[in-house]
């Protein structure tokens, strides 16, 4: 299977091939290596690259994007990783989901305040909803300027991580 990872503005081509058991042949930008990867707990991998041993904590962020956060001994690597075909499809399909921004809750908590209402014009970076978790109020912003199309929660609602809060179009 072929993938494209995007790290900042860099693109990296990765392919993964099963070698049986927990062994995989992984090539990154044409450089091949054999990797023994065992999942030892939820999202936690014991990885042998050759004989170099690592513990790798892989988080795939909730939501539609293939965004990853990978933790190795205190270093957090952030990148997106997508199947090559899927990536090509999205490119060909043009802007598809562009022009829309779904605001989701980054953590479980309580919706304290909706700062906007349906139909309201918003600027990019404007605070739109306040979610409280652990005694802290967090103002969530919209990355996109536009109009509030729909709200999915009411003030006082308890929400899960990744829950849809509102849609800006």
């Amino acid at each position: 299977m072929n993938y494209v990872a995007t790290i900042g503005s860099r693109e990296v081509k990765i392919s993964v091939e099963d070698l049986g058991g927990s062994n995989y042949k992984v090539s990154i930008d044409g450089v091949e290596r054999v990797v023994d990867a065992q999942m030892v707990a939820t999202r936690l991998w014991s990885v042998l690259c050759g004989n170099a041993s690592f513990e790798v904590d892989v988080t795939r962020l909730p939501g539609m994007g293939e965004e990853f956060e990978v933790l190795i001994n205190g270093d957090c690597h952030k990148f997106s990783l997508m199947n090559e075909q899927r990536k090509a499809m999205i490119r060909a399909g043009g802007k598809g989901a562009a022009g829309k921004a779904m605001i989701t809750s980054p953590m479980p908590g309580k919706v304290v305040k909706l700062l906007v209402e349906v139909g309201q014009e918003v600027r990019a970076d404007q605070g739109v909803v306040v979610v409280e978790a652990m005694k802290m109020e967090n103002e969530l912003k919209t990355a996109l300027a536009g109009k509030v199309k729909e709200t999915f929660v009411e003030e006082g609602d308890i929400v899960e991580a990744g829950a849809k809060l509102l849609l800006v179009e």
Partner: protein
Amino acid sequence: MFDKILIANRGEIAVRVLRACKEMGIRTVGVFSEVDRKALHTRYAEEAYCIGPAPARESYLDIDKVIAVARKSGAQAIHPGYGFLAENPLFADRCEKEGIKLIGPSAYAMRTMGSKTLARKTVQAAGVPVVPGTVEPISTEEEVIRAAKTIGFPVMLKATAGGGGKGLRLVREEPELRSALRMAKSEAKSAFSDDSVYVEKYIENPRHVEIQILGDRHGNHVHLGERECSIQRRHQKVIEESPSVIVTPEMREAMGKVAIEAARAVAYEGAGTCEFLVDTHRDFFFLEMNTRLQVEHPVTEMVTGIDIVKEQIRVAAGEKLSIRQEDVKQTGHAIECRVYAEDPERNFIPCPGRITSLRVPGGPGVRDDSGVYAGFEIPIYYDPIISKLVAWGKDRAEAIGRMKRALAVYVVTGVKTTVPFHIRVMKNRHFIEGNFDTDFIDNVFFREEEARQLANEEVALCTAAIQEHIEERRRAVSRNPGEATGPVSMWKYAARPGIPKIGQVGR
């Protein structure tokens, strides 16, 4: 000695106090809110009582409910831990009225030290050096401006009822003063319902050093040396150590002496902490006294060998302190990292949720004071502390080495934690050299981190790609589950063996 103690707290500190009680053979009573039925402290206590719904003000902060449980269970004393009711003089008054011993100082000591201006006045009278500033809370703009000019810029505006970094404003020059005052007042009003402020000289590049003291009701007071707490993020301590690299034996003795004077000024009983700011000339100034057990007490325990919680319990029972000043010796070095359920990659946003797996470090010199377990759901209602990880070594370098290796194997999955942040601090050159002040994390560390090249990128990419590959295969299988669905159901096929299975058509 008490037969039974109620612990009016939750999480790691409730567990810490439970441990001391159990070691002393004292029976324990726990209290829990509805979301804490499965919390570790509920499970550890020998008796546990539900005291109401999740919000703290309806459970852990409800004095009537806590007192009712003490009555019902026959507990003779209450340990409040830190936070919640720990520094509430009304609770202290109530315990006294009910004839239940509160493990801590008197309501009078709490009231005096709880008001920053009254505390300043009291300790100043006892000969303790304080940061130059106003002693009385002031309210009018003119008074604040006059005071600031007298003290000399830069000055700090502080909320009288303040704490936790709220209601603080640094003013470098006079023109900034009016708007800073307005902001400090409104912040103080909303955080503490009290908008009075006072003005203090701003100490440049200060370090935060505090002295642990213990006192009994027989007039004995000792200090257990210092803790350095300059590693703070937005005025909140995150890493503490003992001893401090900047404190000399002479300075320790002088600071210990004034801390004891401050404690004597309010006839202090139990464990307390005098916080000081230390300037670049190593002059120290009293900041405030905390009339409770501190989160960071373990570093002092590790270097002195004194169990502070047990001493608290003993003196509360009327015993004399088990140690004299000459018995107190600091051996080696200890560091504590506060592990929070917060996401360091998202500006330390709280991360409640279920801990799916947990591996706690062990080995020589490592202590983990935790309040969670694998499978526990961290509630959204309380402080997101998971544990206090403490490492002891014969010297600072060994303590840092141990902390680094302990953090590297500390695994918490399901929620994000501050472990990666602590690993980075332990590797930071300024931290290793002991060269930092209270603004180090916010002003120096994060800037250096941004510019840093990450290690092992290819391992990260490989693992994510393998995980995605396995996921896609799994999804593909569930999309084409073979004979279970489709035009010909399994049941039909079983009943009529003659028809071809899906995928066999045309063969």
